[in-house]
């Protein structure tokens, strides 16, 4: 497990964003914009010293867990795990191809280090509650992180999970809402406006922080604070931009949601050049 400095984390996030663009364009399908919004948080988890993991022992019972409930954003997970040494770049370039275990949504039965098979939205936090309860049963001190999307918060099961995490005072559980403001058919506030998440989580007894989830400094601070709270679960409402990192390129398409579609080779080239200029 790595612990990079703030500048190194920013640079790592940039590398991961480039991989996301490249593997989804190579696949010819997928959800790059949903992955790019979440990249800073995922980067911090894997490389900011927050997640305890050993690539050589991916099933170590004491490992920390990261469950990507918004499974369609798996390009960010595969790319971060490639950077961590779980996979090679050549392997993740097979994303979504017939026979590849790097499927369109995460499949825990096909890949090491993938904690949950997700893709039917709303189930990840409940799975995380299960992992957190198991830790308590076994007297292990591992931490479970679960990332949901803001559109995904429309699923009622998540609120069942939020209530149960409060009941069992799961201080070993952190939920992150990647609030990128869009879902499949439009802006989240237009499709199903859940207004602010902070007071909702608070009313269920959770510790809550609302941050700019594309600001690595704020991300690191929030994840640090989350680990200090041990008597109840923590939520991080991570306000992000869908497609963050390549927004000027998406602006040229007139579609700032850009949901569930890869960049063309031409646009990918522009996006990669833009990301290179950040490096």
């Amino acid at each position: 497990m790595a612990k990079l400095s703030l500048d190194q984390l920013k640079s790592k996030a940039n590398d991961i964003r480039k991989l996301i663009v490249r593997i989804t364009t190579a696949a010819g399908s997928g959800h790059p914009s949903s992955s790019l919004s979440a990249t800073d948080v995922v980067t911090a988890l894997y490389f900011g010293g927050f997640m305890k993991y050993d690539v050589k022992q991916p099933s170590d019972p004491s490992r920390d867990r990261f469950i990507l409930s918004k499974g369609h954003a798996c390009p960010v997970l595969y790319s971060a795990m490639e950077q961590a040494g779980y996979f090679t770049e050549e392997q993740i370039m097979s994303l979504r191809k017939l026979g590849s275990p790097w499927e369109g949504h995460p499949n825990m039965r096909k890949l090491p280090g993938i904690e949950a098979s997700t893709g039917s939205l709303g189930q990840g936090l409940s799975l995380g509650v299960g992992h957190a309860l198991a830790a308590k049963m076994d007297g292990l001190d591992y931490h479970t992180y679960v990332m949901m999307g803001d559109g995904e918060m429309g699923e009622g099961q998540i609120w069942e999970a939020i209530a149960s995490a409060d009941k069992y005072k799961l201080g070993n559980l952190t939920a992150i809402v990647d609030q990128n403001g869009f879902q499949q058919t439009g802006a989240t506030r237009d499709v199903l406006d859940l207004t602010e998440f902070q007071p909702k989580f608070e009313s269920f007894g959770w510790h809550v922080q609302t941050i700019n989830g594309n600001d690595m400094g704020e991300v690191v601070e929030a994840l640090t604070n989350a680990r200090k709270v041990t008597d109840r679960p923590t939520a991080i409402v991570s306000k992000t931009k869908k497609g963050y990192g390549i927004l000027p390129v998406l602006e040229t398409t007139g579609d700032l949601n850009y949901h569930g579609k890869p960049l063309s080779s031409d646009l990918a080239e522009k996006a990669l050049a833009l990301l290179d200029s950040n490096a």
Partner: protein
Amino acid sequence: MYYGEASGLKLGAAPRDAFGDALKELGASNKLLCTVDADVGNSTRTEVFAKAYPDRAFNVGIAESNMVSVAGGLAACGKIPVVASFACFLMDNAFDQIRMSVAFPRANVKLVGSHTGISIGEDGPSQMGIEDVALACALPGVAVVVPSDAPSTIAATKATVAHDGPTYMRVGRGKLAILYPDGCDFQIGKAIQLRDGKDVTIIANGLMVAAAVDAATALAKDGVNCRVLDMHTVKPLDHEAIAKASRETGAIVVAEEHLHHGALGAAVCQSLCQHAPAPVEVVDLGDQFAESGDPDGLLQKYGLTPEAIVAAARRVIGRKA
């Protein structure tokens, strides 16, 4: 009156009670075993386990979706979670969670549905699990077990917990006749022949096994010789026992307390067509919801009786080539 009485069988415990007791017994030595409930533990009898091992029993409230996925998370950490609710609320309310949090990742979760069939009685059709077996069978890799009395429910509870992978077990609400001795053998996927015969085979599970025995008793008085198979496992199905019955008796009756589509009747017909064709008659609930009423009256009204099995046996024998 109870099914099996006419054949001299004694009345035993309800499957759900046998299940609760078996779970508690298993929990003493199996520390991986835990329960996740949606606040009906006193109905499903997981409360017997929960009272004995409170630190391994979780009641997440009336939230079946969360219940199933929490169990998926526990299983991913090596636990053996038992998830029980009314069959309809478990299988229907949480079907997507069973699909994605249990079946797809092959999580070692033990699903248990109580209040199955129409014999739950007065609570009425909203509480009756009548499509649960079809739903469970639809999912890849889920073993589906429908035991027929208290001793075999105890054995089935042990067998499903020992099974490596997801299982669904039906445990009925009412008391049933005792068909097996305590400590009986029970292998998932292996039918049990209760009676041998050459004229027709009755393949049944759950409460309809004792009814099948009564039907065989009645038919024997008329010189009709019935084989009775307890097909307690609907998936994986015992194709060998079915094909053997087809070849040796030439006519099949299937009896189950379930809707017509997608469960034992469908599975047996498919198996026969593929492996050893024979005429078949089915005794089931058809394609309808039932109603409130007393259990015996309901079973009579909806034709889930030894008499219905006898009539089906006569019809199917008449269709023999």
